[in-house]
């Protein structure tokens, strides 16, 4: 039998001014199953809470209804009070008599009647409440970081420095990402390699970090606290333990004409290669697609010259399984191939290049050793045109969003050019200058004022070659759309930042959502920017949206701290307001018929299957099972289940039905 206590709060005069609180308490006291009811000036005050606690103890209450303010305000307060008096906190419910009643109605009979209705409804609900206990999930204190750009590096170091294990998986032969390709970085113009390399080395040497390069995620199972990841370690064709990184093989390899990815095609590399001198790890891999031995069955020069005998042509991909408690996705971004814009002549004219290629030209370790020389003939360009928004903010042909980094790096490029070619002239075609960041506007001003970069507001309509010059045609919208034509020696396109190819596939492997541009989606655009909608999986860097380095690093540290918070306890404790699939004795086992409509509707992939076997181990039934680590308690599944086999604790079918019946039957 229920023994419910009803506690009506006056909230000073906030409720009592329009609701006759004493009468609400009195009427509630007459309801079936109500053992005790009282009204009081401030229920949330210490004496008010004591009133509740005493009643629980003295009257042996089995449930409590507090009629006061919104549960969004004080539900935790009253649940805690109940707990302190020895009543399960989930046996307490609140009727919203202030926000939903006294504050929105005038003082009259109907208002008091509504308050009574609301209280009665919750009394009927609480009679069906069941004691609930927080869910405990053990936590594996190892993090998987996917992607070794600056985002992945930062997140790995933070988590490792907090004393936890990290497995960093990078698909390329070296970590570093795009930042390792950059020359100098805005807004300070410090050398990218100089600030990045020490961090890369720290990763390699950190006792808590296990680095797996040339590796990719194959599969991810499990849930927050307990994921199981399968990593494919692609065959490098070398024995990493034997190789000492001497580099003899890479100098002797006869296949030398392969465009270097690191130098964005502006330089070449060999078939056995280290992508760049500062690579971490500094050991080569064989690019099977271009290796003469793999392609034609002849060569093996590297094997002959290797002093340690480290070359392994028969090496195969290896799958390793690891257990982790959290995942940080840091797979970064890509740039749009400007060949999609034929009017700019990229691909047709050698001296039309992308911003990333310009970074390589301006980099001291690049193919020109940092001198700005144009690709076609190696001459120093006297006049250079930069085209901002090449693809960005162009819903018709490119992408509708702003790539965010281009305004800044284009200003940087023009500046770097002016610093290196003092007599040169630089022009930037732009739509708007977006320089919202610390010291960013000042940086752009410096380009305009100190370095005399010519900013032209307008779009470029065509680029073509004439008499060895690149003719750039556009308009200047600030001068009444006056046509402009510039005879340039080189053109740099700030091509749009886009999601990585394969991001969609990766997202599906991990069950995280992605937006229409294939960037990974955060769980909440404002309040959960580093979480994904799958608990335990976090986002860092440009894989979520285009970002510059400072923003990338802050998000990476944010993601790391989320993982560290998760690892700060041995067990995860979660609210028990989650779904459960019913179970019953044999031969029924569950009324669930295994249609898995619920599973396809669940926004969190929280529903899996359970095989029910007989004594001989034969599967006799396949039913749904909710993973308490993943379920967020939305109840979407419940409304789908035709056989009413899945229900949600705290908002169960019985409870909701009782509320409907009680609310509508007041006469």
């Amino acid at each position: 039998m229920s023994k419910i206590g009803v506690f009506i709060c006056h909230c000073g005069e906030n409720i009592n001014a329009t609701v006759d609180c004493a009468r609400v308490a009195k009427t509630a006291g007459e309801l079936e199953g109500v053992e005790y009811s009282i009204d009081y000036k401030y229920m949330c005050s210490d004496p008010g809470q004591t009133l509740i606690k005493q009643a629980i103890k003295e009257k042996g209450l089995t449930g409590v209804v507090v009629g006061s303010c919104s549960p969004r305000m004080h539900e935790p307060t009253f649940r805690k009070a109940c707990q302190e008096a020895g009543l399960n906190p989930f046996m307490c419910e609140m009727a919203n008599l202030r926000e939903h009643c006294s504050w929105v109605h005038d003082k009259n009979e109907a208002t008091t009647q509504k308050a009574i209705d609301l209280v009665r409804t919750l009394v009927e609900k609480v009679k069906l409440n069941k004691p609930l206990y927080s869910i405990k999930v053990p936590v594996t204190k190892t993090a998987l970081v996917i992607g070794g750009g600056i985002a992945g590096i930062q997140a790995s170091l933070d988590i490792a420095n907090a004393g936890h294990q990290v497995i960093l998986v990078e698909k390329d032969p070296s970590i570093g990402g795009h930042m390792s390709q950059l020359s100098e970085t805005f807004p300070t113009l410090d050398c990218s390699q100089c600030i990045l390399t020490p961090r890369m080395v720290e990763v390699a040497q950190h006792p808590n970090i296990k680095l797996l390069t040339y590796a990719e995620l194959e599969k991810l199972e499990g849930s927050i606290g307990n994921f199981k990841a399968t990593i494919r370690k692609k065959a490098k064709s070398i024995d990493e333990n034997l190789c000492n990184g001497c580099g003899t093989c890479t100098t002797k390899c006869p296949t030398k004409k392969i465009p270097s990815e690191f130098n964005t095609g502006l330089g070449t590399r060999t078939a056995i290669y280290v992508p760049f001198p500062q690579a971490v790890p500094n050991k080569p891999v064989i690019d099977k697609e271009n290796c003469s031995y793999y392609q034609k069955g002849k060569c093996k020069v590297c094997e002959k010259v290797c002093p340690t005998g480290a070359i392994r042509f028969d090496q195969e991909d290896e799958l390793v399984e690891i257990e982790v408690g959290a995942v940080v996705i840091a797979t970064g971004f890509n740039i749009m191939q400007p060949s999609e814009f034929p009017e700019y002549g990229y691909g047709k004219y050698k001296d039309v290049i992308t911003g990333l290629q310009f970074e390589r030209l301006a980099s001291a370790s690049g193919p020109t050793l940092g001198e700005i020389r144009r690709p076609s003939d190696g001459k120093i360009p006297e006049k250079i045109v930069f085209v901002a928004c090449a693809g960005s903010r162009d819903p018709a042909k490119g992408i509708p969003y702003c790539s965010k980094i281009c305004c800044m790096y284009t200003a940087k490029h023009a500046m770097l050019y002016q610093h290196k070619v003092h007599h040169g002239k630089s022009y930037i075609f732009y739509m708007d200058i977006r320089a919202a960041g610390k010291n960013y506007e000042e940086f752009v001003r410096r380009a305009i004022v100190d370095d005399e970069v010519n900013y032209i507001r307008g779009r470029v309509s065509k680029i073509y070659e004439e008499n060895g010059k690149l003719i750039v045609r556009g308009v200047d919208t600030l001068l009444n759309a006056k046509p402009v034509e510039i005879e340039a020696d080189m053109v740099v396109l700030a091509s749009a930042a886009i999601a990585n190819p394969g991001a969609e596939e990766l997202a599906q492997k991990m069950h995280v959502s992605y937006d229409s541009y294939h960037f990974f989606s955060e769980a909440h655009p404002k309040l959960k920017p580093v979480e994904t909608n799958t608990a335990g999986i976090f986002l860092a860097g440009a894989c979520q949206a285009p970002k510059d380095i400072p923003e990338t690093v802050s998000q990476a540290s944010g993601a790391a701290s989320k993982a560290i918070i998760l690892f700060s306890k041995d067990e995860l404790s979660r609210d028990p307001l989650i779904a459960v699939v019913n179970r019953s004795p044999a031969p029924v086992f569950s009324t669930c018929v295994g249609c898995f409509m619920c599973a396809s509707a669940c926004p969190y992939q929280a529903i899996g299957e359970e095989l029910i076997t007989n004594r001989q181990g034969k599967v006799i039934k396949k039913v749904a099972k909710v993973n308490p680590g993943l379920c967020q308690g939305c109840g979407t599944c419940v409304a789908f289940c035709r056989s009413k086999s899945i229900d949600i604790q705290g908002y169960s079918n019985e409870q909701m039905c009782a509320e409907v019946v009680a609310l509508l039957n007041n006469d």
Partner: protein
Amino acid sequence: MNELIKKAVALLESDSVQVIIGYAEGTGTRTRAIFITRTADCENLIFDSRCVQNLAVYLTKSEIKKLGKPAIVAPIPVLRSILQLAVENQITENDLVVLGITPQSELVDFESFAAIEAFLSTHQIVIEEKYQETIREIKAMPVTERFAYWVKELEPCFKCYACRAACPLCYCTRCTVDNNQPQWISVASHPLGNLEWHIMRAMHLAGRCTDCEACYNACPMSIPIHLLTKNMLQDVTENFGTYGPSLDKLNTLSSFKPDDKESFIR
């Protein structure tokens, strides 16, 4: 249908299946479902235009499952049900042999459920014009008249649940009407109970019903409950694009598009 009989014999003889679910002569001019476990009985198998019962309903029945792996005689409506049952994880390719029958009464083998889907893509569900007309007429009634019409139509229902038993997609082990915690639906067959039962039944078939009419054919009182499901089918098509069971599409109601259109939410 000698070919069908030959095939059935072969399947049983080779022990590829243990039971054949098919049609046989019934009383009078009617046909009935037959479950053959011995080769000698295969000669009773028939197939002609009178064979309209949806045999797919037996695939999920535990008594039939006990007999072993089945082969099922499957004209188009049965094929549709099979596909929908596959989408809903009730049957798997390995546990079933499908003896498809084309509208020209030819026997076809299906290697996989995907092959059934490919075949069905050329046989889309169409709501016959006469039904469309009836639905239009009902919808043209003023709302109170329409309500009265249905209350009256549903009045003879005495909740025998023959419609439920005949529907291949009503395979739940415990139907919501039989659930009394809470009591979702008034059990008695008074107007409210009947109305609630039929709303529930129709909603549970929303986006799933394959328009086989088995429910209507089974109803001893000939209550036009198929009009409700047909109307829903039209609604599905109108709101979410063409409908037909499909292996790689999620159920209409357990999936969504962020830009689904509606005109009534404020």
